């Protein structure tokens, strides 16, 4: 280190400003370069393994590695993930229509139409045979995007998300450098990070994977979807959750700004499906004891048809918690949805059967 030196700050201000500009440029260049780093998209979906959104891995495998056709896809949040059993729907549809109809429930916990758009795009790109996409509905749509959007969406989609009145935009974009560097390294050294580049069918849960059954969660707790809880226990939860809801704030003509993500991505899904000749519908599964009107019902009716299962709201035996069905509710909801769809198919209002089966 030697003797004490005088501070060496003899730069001219112009040189200092130039160096500061160089610093900012170098930092931004690093950020931009990170966005261009390549990676394996299968590894991208594996980032959610071990989280409550671990089903994302199965969704990717179902779409990319399983050639079993998909006629009807359900894309939604936890209510449809837990409340609609694809295998049960398949059985009811087969019984009512006399043909095998392949149903895939691609729902993931938490609301967020931006993620539904990503999954829909993935679905149509990998299974162009899909005829019907059912999206989930809640009483009030989410004002923010899905927390997993930044993890699963393509870089361009994150950057091109609506900027105006989008509280998630900034946090999603600034997450990208880390995501891209991390995925690049994991793709280069999968063994070190414990991820798979190659599909292992022995680990795959199959096309008949049922998202509605009781199971052990990623953090080791038993998720019970079989028990029937008392009305009081469920009702107490319901009132608390309902009280937490933020009511609709803006008049109808400004709703595009209040629910900017929900509306823009719903329109994008409907437009994408429309271009491919795919029908779009919406399923509402209720919370216990409350029949709240679905906000902006007319908007959804404009983009597709709406199925409202509010009839199941009053029977506590349907619920494992305030917003999610147990096996009784799931069975009822799955049968009800399948019966409605079969009736619409028979009436010629929908066409989701494979071509040769009609």
């Amino acid at each position, binding site marked *: *280190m030697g003797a*004490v*030196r005088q*501070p*060496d*700050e003899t*730069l001219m*201000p112009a040189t*200092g*400003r130039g*160096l*500061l500009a*160089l*610093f*900012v440029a*170098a*930092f931004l260049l*690093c*950020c931009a370069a*990170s966005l261009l780093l390549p990676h394996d998209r299968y590894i991208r979906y594996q980032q959610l393994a071990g989280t409550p959104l671990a089903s994302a891995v199965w969704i990717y495998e179902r779409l990319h590695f399983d050639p079993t056709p998909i006629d009807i896809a359900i894309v939604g949040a936890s209510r449809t993930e837990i409340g609609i059993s694809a295998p049960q729907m398949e059985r009811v549809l087969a019984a009512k229509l006399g043909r095998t109809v392949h149903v895939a429930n691609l729902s993931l916990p938490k609301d967020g139409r931006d993620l539904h758009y990503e999954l829909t795009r993935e679905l149509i790109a990998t299974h162009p045979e899909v005829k019907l996409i059912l999206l989930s509905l809640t009483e009030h749509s989410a004002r923010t995007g899905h927390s997993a959007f930044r993890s699963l969406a393509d870089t361009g989609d994150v950057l091109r998300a609506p900027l105006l009145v989008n509280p998630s935009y*900034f*946090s999603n974009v*600034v*997450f990208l*450098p*880390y*995501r891209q*560097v*991390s995925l690049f390294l994991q793709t280069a050294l999968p063994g070190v990070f*414990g991820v798979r580049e190659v599909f292992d069918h022995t680990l795959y849960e199959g096309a008949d994977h049922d998202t509605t059954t009781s199971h052990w969660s990623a953090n080791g707790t038993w998720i019970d979807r079989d028990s029937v809880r008392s009305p009081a226990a469920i009702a107490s939860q319901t009132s608390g959750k309902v009280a937490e809801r933020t009511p609709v704030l803006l008049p109808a003509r400004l709703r595009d700004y209040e629910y900017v993500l929900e509306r823009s991505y719903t329109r994008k899904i409907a437009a994408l499906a429309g271009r491919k000749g795919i029908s779009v519908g919406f399923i509402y599964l209720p919370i216990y004891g409350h029949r709240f009107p679905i906000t902006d019902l007319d908007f959804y009716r404009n983009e597709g048809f709406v199925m409202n299962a509010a009839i199941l709201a009053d029977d506590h035996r349907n619920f494992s918690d305030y917003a999610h069905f147990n096996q009784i509710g799931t069975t009822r909801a799955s049968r009800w949805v399948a019966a409605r769809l079969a009736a619409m198919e028979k009436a010629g209002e929908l066409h989701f059967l494979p071509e040769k089966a009609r």
Partner: protein
Amino acid sequence: MFNSATFLLLFLPVALVLYHGLFAGRDRWRQPFLIGLTILFYAIGGKIFVGLLLLSVVVNYGVARWISACRHMARSTRWPLVLGIGFDLTLLFYFKYFAAVIGGADALFGLNAALPKIALPLGISFFTFQQIGFLVDLARGRFEMKSALDYAGFVLFFPQLLAGPIVRYEELVPQLRARPPRAASNDILVGLTIFAIGLFKKAVIADTVATLASPVFDAAAAGTVPGTAACWIAAFAYTAQIYFDFSGYSDMAIGTARMFGIVLPLNFHSPLRATSIIELWRRWHITLSRWAQSYIFQPLTIPLARFAADHAPGNRGTFLLSFAVPIMLSMVVIGVWHGAGWTFVLFGVLQGLYMVVNEAWRMAHRKARKARKGHLPAYVEPMYQALTLIAFVIAVVAFRAPSLGTVGRMYLAMIGGGTGSAVTAWPGGIAGALAILAVVYAVVYLAPNTQAIMARYEPVLDWAKWRKVDPARLAVEWRLNAGWVVASALLLFAGFALMMRGTTNFIYFNF
């Protein structure tokens, strides 16, 4: 806060552009702008306590005026000082210790009292101690307080408000009053580099070693006894975590202040390389140690030394009265300052005991040291370093553990007395954990610290004094040129990217 994208990419750039573009050159607006910025910064972190912060500033300012008036009239400053410190300690006690005291009384006497839930205002321990120090120094006549704006600027300076460094009035206020003497771009570049090093320490090193410590301490807290090796690894990992976390935070505070043209005092100077525990505490959380030295140790030790001299209790008695008692009290206060819990008391007691033993050893070997000719054998310094580090690591277990029971289970396991029933699931196994620790401690022992890297640009106050202390084996000095500036940008990017993986809160935000 500092380790958030909102701060780094929005708050800080906008604040710097406004400050250097509009306010830095205007004497009338410079301090009000920084005060307003600080209130906004504090409100973003926890707006419900903005009123409390301002109340604390107003009351302390009122007391300071009273003290100044007493001094001008040559009257005793005892009462305003007692009232001012009493107010500060009451606030601190209520928010930090009241719930714990009620809980303790409830457990002891079975009162069945409803336990109050009291949120801890951000930075209360820091801005309270800073203001107490100010009142005492003002009463001692170390400086004259000029204006309310100076005082508000002294407390409400956002880079160091939440977790230090704890500054003195005469260190900060003259700098706030004057236009920054250096070119803004130079200050910003130097500050950004110091900030980048701090962010790297936090997001890359501290958050990584945290993954080694947490599973073991959590297992012990859950009632199981981890294995001996796991406990030692966790203890060393947590020591590294708290060092890189808090010194990283301090770097970020010092760097942020520098971007606004202000040089703050040093808070860490490679303490884990120290060869004695006394030296370690001179270099660990320096501004808190300095505070305890000035406002606890010295006020106690002077009258106790006089008492010892008057009553001639012998060498041991004099040592006990003039050093052991004040240092034990100081260290217990430092321990308890971190939180209300017996674990923090134990931490303080252990540190106090270490220092007493250290000082006794020094006194006992003073003559031998003076009589020695030539250099010490090569093994002595590493041996002292290792002994100091191990002693500190053992005490840090008490600092991290949530209860004395957990401390007991950890210590039991560390001496090989545990069952080792808890499984520690480190991603890379024990070999991976040891490899990470080896790299981290190699950085501690070999690499230059932040201020040594930035040595050419007066990184901290009194740097001329500090730069001679324990220089690193590897010397690297940053320069204001294109190559080093690009390196700084890369470092900031690395810290920023890793920060976005989900950084933990700064440990000292809990205090």
